[in-house]
């Protein structure tokens, strides 16, 4: 009984291992390649920061809950294979209002802001270019050449209590 249980766990471990290794390909990219602030008061927002694999032309969303009385800094890093600067937008989840678009700010890869009202934000990340894999829905019969231009994007979020100004 004990032997079969050990065998079961061993087999399960080896079955799960390749899946884990794929998902961890970009796991802590935002830390290892992160563009950290020089302001020592900023702390990494570990729960909100994340990394993922992207292909050229892909758009994806993540959520960030921001609180009144805090400053936030969002910085994006990416693998060179993905090409040009990453576009990112901050959207208010409640009313879909566009609060920030780095396309209007020379595609800067970092942005700092102060929050005066707590809310849930959607961070929309778009990688420039196009990919054969993303066009697959329009071709039912064919084979889809593997995307070779695939790389990591890291979104590092830092936060701190908004410093008091004046006397």
């Amino acid at each position, binding site marked *: 009984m004990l032997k079969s249980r050990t065998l079961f766990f061993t087999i399960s471990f080896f079955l799960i291992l390749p899946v884990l*290794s*794929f*998902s961890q390909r970009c796991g802590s990219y935002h830390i290892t390649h992160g563009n950290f602030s020089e302001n020592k008061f900023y702390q990494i927002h570990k729960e909100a920061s994340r990394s993922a*694999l992207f292909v050229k032309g892909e*758009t994806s969303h*993540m959520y960030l809950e921001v609180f009144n009385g805090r400053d936030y800094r969002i910085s994006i890093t990416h693998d060179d294979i993905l090409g040009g600067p990453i576009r990112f937008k901050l959207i208010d989840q409640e009313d879909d209002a566009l609060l920030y678009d780095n396309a209007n700010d020379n595609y800067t890869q970092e942005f700092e802001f102060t929050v005066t009202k707590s809310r849930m934000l959607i961070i929309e990340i778009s990688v420039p270019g196009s990919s054969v894999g993303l066009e697959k829905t329009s071709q039912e019969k064919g*084979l*889809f050449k593997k995307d070779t231009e695939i790389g990591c994007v890291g979104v590092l979020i830092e936060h701190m209590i908004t410093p008091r100004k004046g006397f």
Partner: protein
Amino acid sequence: MKQFIVFLSGFLILLIIQSIGFSQDCFEYYKQCEEYNKKHYKYDDNTTGLFLSSYKPDTVIFEAVTGINYKISICADSISIPLHFIIENEENEILFDNSSDNLTQVFEFSVNNYKKLSVIVDIDKTCNEQITNCSGCMAVIIEKAIKPRTGF
């Protein structure tokens, strides 16, 4: 008459042994092609070695499913020219032809629905045996890997 039947039987047996010998010599040829096996990929069970000559094309059939990246590699170091191959579906529609991709010997792809695919490999019939090797062992290596998830 009896002598003729014995002769014929002997001849047939020799022919069969020779063909078995050829196919078995080539069957495990793919093991010599390990440089094709890259990280993350695993051999599909249909990976095989074949004896290929310019007289007839050979076919390897396998099943492709969604969520997996496939890699087809043609390994034929003993044949001096790059091999032509096509990938067909069950309706004999050509889905990929390496002649439209500089006779590439490696093709990586995925599918968006289940497909039974045939890889058909042949040697250019104009290949001149006196100038170059137009026949020999080759391997159709089919590798697969879980397609990585992209985006958040």
